[in-house]
């Protein structure tokens, strides 16, 4: 009896565990955490949403509730001259990025919630300004998504540059998934491409489409909160919050439709389905998707070689599980995933500094430098 029963029991246990752990491979590994530590660069910032480095010892950091800090040798000073920042739900002061020629022109870009417009509420805006000392001047509104809405969700947004004089930034679906992401005539659920002066590149994919938002570079996105440029190929890599079990990494290409909400690997947070379709003709598959969702924010490649064995690897912050994720890539696939600095806190942002080290924006803490012992 006992012998007959045990194979069945094993089968039962196997069946049960395979149901519970529907993690999308490769499964996350947790290496010996004593190998990693951090150095606090600046503290006392609740939500350090964006950052960019002026030099090794000098950086700009945004605090979501609407403060821009200039951090010099660990001391933070508030930068004056910001426009009115609309803070609502996930919106507020978001990313900041230096102009590629910042050394000569002192121009910075930032994205933020803005009430500019007719309707109640707000939407994501892209600004530029000149930074002189601790103050901004010559403030310009380069892009403002419309219409405004009182919804709290999915504002995006990261700012990156390619080597051809373009700026890219993303805006999420603004809590209106069935209306915005698939409609080229509407803002939201898009990655946008502009020239550095804010004008629209003549070769943007939808400039000849009547009524289309001409700044659109790709569409069908849910909420992009990580973006970086691949150090070798120059491609724009992006990560976005999906629904439950549908967080994605995408490689952004001109005119592509990434499918939200018509295709997704995720389901509603309430547990109900969104669609049973994971692919459709004319829509891109993600480079990778996370099940379970890690709530990815921030994205950076390690290029410098200051960390042994991490060169070329991709790093993404996890808000949900409070760690930095290391993804090892080989032949266009994710082959290994690791938890770095487990339980460090909600990792909002990750960037490679001019010294080649990785820097994290961690909620409730500030900016931390990643050390490998």
């Amino acid at each position, binding site marked *: 009896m006992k012998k007959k029963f045990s194979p069945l029991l094993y089968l039962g246990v196997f069946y049960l565990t395979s149901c519970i752990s529907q993690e999308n491979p490769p499964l996350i590994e947790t290496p010996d955490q004593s190998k990693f530590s951090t150095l606090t660069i600046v503290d006392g910032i*609740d939500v350090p949403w964006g950052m960019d480095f002026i030099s090794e010892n000098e950086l700009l950091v945004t605090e979501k509730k609407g403060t821009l800090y200039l951090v010099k040798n660990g001391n933070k000073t508030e930068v004056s001259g910001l426009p009115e920042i609309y803070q609502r*739900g996930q919106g507020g002061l978001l990313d900041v990025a230096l102009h590629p020629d910042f050394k000569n022109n002192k121009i910075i870009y930032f994205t933020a919630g803005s009430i500019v417009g007719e309707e109640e509420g707000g939407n994501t805006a892209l600004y530029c300004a000149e930074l002189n000392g601790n103050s901004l001047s010559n403030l310009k509104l380069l892009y403002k998504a419309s219409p405004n809405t009182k919804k709290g*969700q999915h504002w995006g947004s990261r700012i990156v540059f390619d080597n051809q004089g373009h700026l890219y930034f993303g805006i999420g679906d603004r809590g209106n998934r069935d209306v915005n992401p698939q409609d080229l005539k509407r803002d939201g659920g898009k990655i946008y491409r502009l020239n550095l002066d804010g004008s629209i590149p003549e070769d943007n994919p939808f400039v000849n489409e009547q009524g289309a938002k001409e700044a659109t570079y790709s569409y069908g996105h849910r909420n992009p909160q990580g973006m970086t440029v691949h150090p070798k190929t120059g491609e724009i890599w992006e990560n976005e919050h999906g629904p439950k079990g549908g967080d994605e990494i995408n490689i952004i290409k001109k005119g592509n439709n990434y499918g939200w909400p018509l295709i997704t690997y995720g389901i509603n947070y309430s547990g109900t389905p969104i669609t049973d379709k994971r692919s459709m003709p004319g829509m891109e598959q993600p480079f990778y998707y996370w099940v379970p969702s890690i709530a990815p924010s921030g994205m950076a490649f390690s290029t410098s070689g200051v960390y042994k064995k991490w060169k070329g690897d991709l790093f993404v912050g996890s808000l949900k599980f409070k760690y930095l994720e290391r993804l090892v890539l080989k032949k266009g696939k994710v082959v290994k995933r690791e938890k770095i600095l487990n339980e460090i806190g909600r990792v909002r942002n990750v960037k490679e500094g001019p010294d080649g080290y990785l820097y994290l924006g961690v*909620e409730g803490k500030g900016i931390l430098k990643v050390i490998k012992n």
Partner: protein
Amino acid sequence: MKSFLGLMALLIFFEGTWLYQNKPLAQSISDGKEIYEDFCLQCHLENGQGVSGVFPPLAKSDYLLNDIDLSIKGIKYGLSGPIVVNGEPYDGVMQNQGLDEGEIADVMNYILNNWGNSYKEMITLERVAGITE
């Protein structure tokens, strides 16, 4: 009789202004549900259960029910640092979500009347307005 009528008129007047500023509880709860789904659900989850050790529960939460004004203050101005909820420690950051006072009253009424929570009083706009940082 005259003074009784006067008193009635006065009562109706006050009731009227109260109703004007504060909608009926059922309406407030239903508006609060919308606010909850938009601003709170992604962390505190659909049944207010939260995530153990990460996002504190709202369902049958002692932290919430023992001092409701403290929770209103948390929603209004943000809450960060260590707290203990139902015996479990939490040390996170909840930012002020940019909700107006009416929206805070609505979402509190929704939270206080769901998932096994019940509270005899309706949270009013005045009560939210009276809470300072």
